[in-house]
C-alpha cells in the first residue's frame, strides 16, 4: 500500500486548495447534509439550478483528505451540467469506486484521479461522500423539496 497509489498529486492539490468550498450559496435551490458516522465525515452540499442545469455547486464539510478532495473535484466536474447528466456522472463515479472502468473518464475531470481509491475499501466511502450528496441534492430538487439530511456509510 504505497501512499502514491492513493494520494495522487491532483488529490493533494484539491485537498490543499479546495474548489467551490463555501458555507453559503446565493439563490440556492437545495441544501443537503450528509454524514458518515463511522468516519465522522460531515458534508454540506448546496446547488443552484437554472433551466434544469447545475448553475452552481458548493460544498463545505469536515473529513479526511480523500473526502474533501473528492468533493472539490466533483463540484468542478458537475457544474454546468444538466441534472440528468450529472446524475449519470455520479453513477459513473460510483461504479468506478467499485472497480469498474469509468464510462466517461473525460467528463469526470479530476475525479479520475480517484481510480486508485477503489483498491482501498475503507476509503471508498470517503471518496463517494460528495458525489452521493450531489445525487441526493438533485433527487431532492426533482422531488420539489429544498433540503435533506442523510446519514449513511456509502
Amino acid at each position, binding site marked *: *500500500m*504505497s*501512499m502514491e497509489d*492513493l*494520494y495522487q498529486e491532483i488529490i*493533494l492539490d484539491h*485537498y*490543499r486548495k479546495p474548489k467551490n468550498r463555501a458555507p453559503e450559496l446565493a439563490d440556492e435551490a437545495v441544501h443537503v447534509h450528509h454524514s458518515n*458516522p*463511522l*468516519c*465522522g*465525515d*460531515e458534508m454540506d452540499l448546496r446547488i443552484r439550478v437554472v433551466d434544469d442545469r447545475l448553475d452552481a455547486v458548493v460544498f463545505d464539510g*469536515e*473529513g*479526511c*483528505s*480523500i473526502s474533501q478532495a473528492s468533493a472539490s473535484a466533483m463540484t468542478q466536474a458537475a457544474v454546468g451540467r444538466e441534472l440528468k447528466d450529472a446524475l449519470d456522472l455520479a453513477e459513473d463515479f460510483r461504479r468506478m469506486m467499485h472497480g469498474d472502468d469509468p464510462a466517461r473518464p473525460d467528463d469526470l475531470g479530476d475525479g479520475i484521479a480517484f481510480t486508485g481509491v477503489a483498491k*482501498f475499501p*475503507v*476509503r471508498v466511502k*470517503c471518496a463517494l461522500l460528495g458525489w452521493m450528496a450531489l445525487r441526493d441534492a438533485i433527487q431532492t430538487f426533482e422531488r420539489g423539496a429544498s433540503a435533506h439530511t442523510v446519514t449513511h456509510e456509502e
Partner: protein
Amino acid sequence: MAIDVAAVRRSLPILDRELDGHRLVYLDSAASSLTPEPVLDAMDRYYRWSRSNVNRGVYPLAEEATDLYEGARTVLAGFLDADPTGVVFTKNATEACNLLAYGYVRAHLGPDDVLLSTVMEHHANLVPFTQAAAAVGAEVRHVPITPDGLLDLDAAAELLADGRVTFAAFVHVSNVLGTINDVPRLTRMVRDANDRAVVHVDGAQAAPHLPVSFRDLGIDSYAITGHKMLGPTGIGALVARPELLERMEPFLTGGDMIRDVTLTGATWNDVPHKFEAGTPMIAEAAGLAAAVGLLEGYGMAAVRAHERELTAQLLDALGTVAGVTVHGPKDVDLRGGAVSFALDGIHPHDVGAMLGSRGVCVRVGHHCTKPLMRCLDVAATTRASSYVYNDVDDLEPLVDGLEAAAAFFAR
C-alpha cells in the same frame, strides 16, 4: 522478572512479515492482540488429537474435549481470582455484556430503577444497557469525565445521591483514553448509595494488561474477551458471582443449557451451564487457557510494569512531534498502554494511511466510543496501543511516520 520481549517475539512468526519493505510494527493490540504459537498449538492439539464434542460423550475423545473445555473455565477463573462456577463462556465481551443486559436488566429491572453508565464506555458496554433500559423504562445516568480523561467521581456522587441507582456498568480501562478507573472506589460509592445495586465492569482492556482480582474488585460481574489477551478470536466470558447468575434468567436457549424439555416448556441446567446453549467454543477455550498460561508465565505484574514503562516512553516520543495532542491521562500510573492522539489539522484516516504505508499498524476512527468522541469534540482519533511484544524500537517508526504525515498533508 522483566518481560523477555525478544522471546515473546520469537513465538510470533507474524512479526517477521514485511509490509512493502517495512518491518511490521504492530501497535493495535487494543483492537486485537497477536497470537503466540503456544496458543495455536493448544488449539491444534485439540483438533488433531481430541476432536469431538463436549458433554456426555462416553468415549475418550469426548472426555478429553470436556476436560479441555471445563479445564479452561478453571484456568480463567484462577487467572481472574474468581469462582469457576461463575465463568460463562461467550463468543466475545460484547455477548457477555448482552447476556447480563438480557438475563438481568431486562428480566429484573423496571421503571423505578436507574442505571449508571459513563461517557467513556465502549459501545459493547453501553448499547446493550441503554437498549435494555429503554425496554423496561429505566433511566440511565452517565458519569462525565474530567479534562484529563478521568471519571468525575464528584459528579458520580451526585448521580448516586438519590439512592435510585440499582445497576452500574462501567469500564475498567478505557480503550481510547487508556484511563484505569478506580473500580473498587466507584463500586463502593454505588453500594453505599444503594446496597442492592449490581455492579458490572467491562474488563476487555484490563484483563490483558493488569493483575485483576475479581474478588478484590468487589463487583458482581466482569466481561473479558480472548482475542485481546493473546487468545483466539471467537471466545470471551462473563465472570460473575454465582449468586448473580442464579438470579438471572436464561438468555440463549437450546441444547446443553437445559435440564428437561417438553414441547411447551423447559427447566434449566445449573449455572454456569444454564447460559451456554449449543456446542461451545471448544478449541477456542483450549486456546484461551493457553494464552492465560502464557500471561501467568510472564506474571501480570511484569506485564503491567513493562507497559507502564513503554507507555511513558511513547508519551515522551509523541511529545517530540509538533502538533500532537494526547487524549487521556498523562500520568502513567493512571493509564494503560492505549494512547489516542490528534495530529493537528490532519484527519486520522490520513494519519493511519501514512503509518500503514510504512508498516506501522495503528487504529484510527471512533473506536466504538461515539459518545466519548462527542465529549472530546473530535470525529475520530489515532490510537497506538502496545503489548508484551512491543518495545522501544517500535516507537521510532511511529514517530517518523507521524512526521512524514505532517509534512505530506501540510496545507
